[in-house]
């Protein structure tokens, strides 16, 4: 599924023996040890000077370079995705979204997340306005937070969702100052997850542009 049959794009299905410098570089992208298998083309991988213009190399070698590029991008993608889950930016619901994406709906995740961005920005603006009023309508503020909690929960934006819970408590207490602090925190978390997801999508685009397939993350 990933790359072509004769590629070494996935460390999983090729055995390769690295020298020290390449081992170090590959370990940046993927935690497991990768081993080289020695074929004539692999010495080009080790020793080909960067200055060589790629089109002047034999086609097979050029193809190897392209496949390596895809492989590295894919490893970056997998590692980045894992870090987003590990650091709590995303939760299991995001995996659910990914599972709903397939060949008939290849952009499903991007579409849902884009809707989430639009919806959240609208709600954050509404919250700012509502809390700026001389007489704050806490029922209205609570309604907005409830919506934001719902949508962040539906896309798996865990940290944003978790910010909504104390926010609703502040609304119940009719505490404007506390609400403003919560709003500030939610805005920060939202901008953080937005930038993380945009980076993820950019990585996807780079993989596709380099001719590779986006790795499935279970």
């Amino acid at each position: 599924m990933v790359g072509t049959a004769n590629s070494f794009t996935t460390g999983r299905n090729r055995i390769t023996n690295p020298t020290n410098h390449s081992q170090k570089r590959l370990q940046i992208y993927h935690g497991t040890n990768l081993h080289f298998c020695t074929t004539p083309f692999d010495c080009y991988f080790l020793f080909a000077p960067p200055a060589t213009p790629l089109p002047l190399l034999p086609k097979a070698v050029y193809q190897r370079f392209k496949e390596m590029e895809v492989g590295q991008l894919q490893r970056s993608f997998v590692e980045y995705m894992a870090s987003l889950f590990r650091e709590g930016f995303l939760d299991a619901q995001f995996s659910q979204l990914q599972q709903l994406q397939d060949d008939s709906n290849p952009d499903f995740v991007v579409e849902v997340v884009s809707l989430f961005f639009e919806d959240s920005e609208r709600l954050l603006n509404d919250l700012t306005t509502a809390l700026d009023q001389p007489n704050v309508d806490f029922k209205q503020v609570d309604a907005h937070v409830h919506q934001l909690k719902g949508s962040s929960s539906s896309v798996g934006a865990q940290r944003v969702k978790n910010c909504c819970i104390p926010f609703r408590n502040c609304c119940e207490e009719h505490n404007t100052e506390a609400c403003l602090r919560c709003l500030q925190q939610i805005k920060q978390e939202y901008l953080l997850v937005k930038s993380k997801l945009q980076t993820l999508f950019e990585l996807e685009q780079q993989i596709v542009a380099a001719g590779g397939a986006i790795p499935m993350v279970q």
Partner: protein
Amino acid sequence: MAQVQTTMDTQFHVLAVDDSIIDRKLIERLLKTSSYQVTVVDSGSKALEFLGLLSEEKEGAEAREVGVNLIITDYSMPEMTGYDLLRKIKGSSYLKDIPVIIMSSENVPSRINRCLEEGAEEFFLKPVQQSDVNRIKPHLMREKVMVPNGLKRRKAMADLSPDQKTRKYNNSNNLCGIFWQNICE
């Protein structure tokens, strides 16, 4: 054309109601992966309009048959909550047999009980997942409740004799019934 009609007759049609655009997209995708035909609306009033209950205002609306096997609705919606919608459906003589499922992001036992008592089949906690959608099948109506969409149609229906009514609608319903029997029995 006849082939399309057949597919539409035998595919289960679910009406989904949710005011959140993200949740609408999600539920639509979940239902479509289970091969249901899906109509999504953003409010209780739009749902009732689709089901023909608000046809008073739509005098000139095109008469159209609407077949629905199940309604799945969010609980917290502005103006008309999912509970209000449930009550209106159960209070309607020709809609009351359509199974209704309520979704909510809040796990409030009194709310859940109230909905189940009012006649909801199930209560899903949001975010709704594939495993929840897999639980829908047993609740689906065997035969689509064919709801005339538009006042004209309803008036026309009222003028028909019982025999004529049966002939008009039960043919397609029997197709559903036969399909169901073949698959399940």
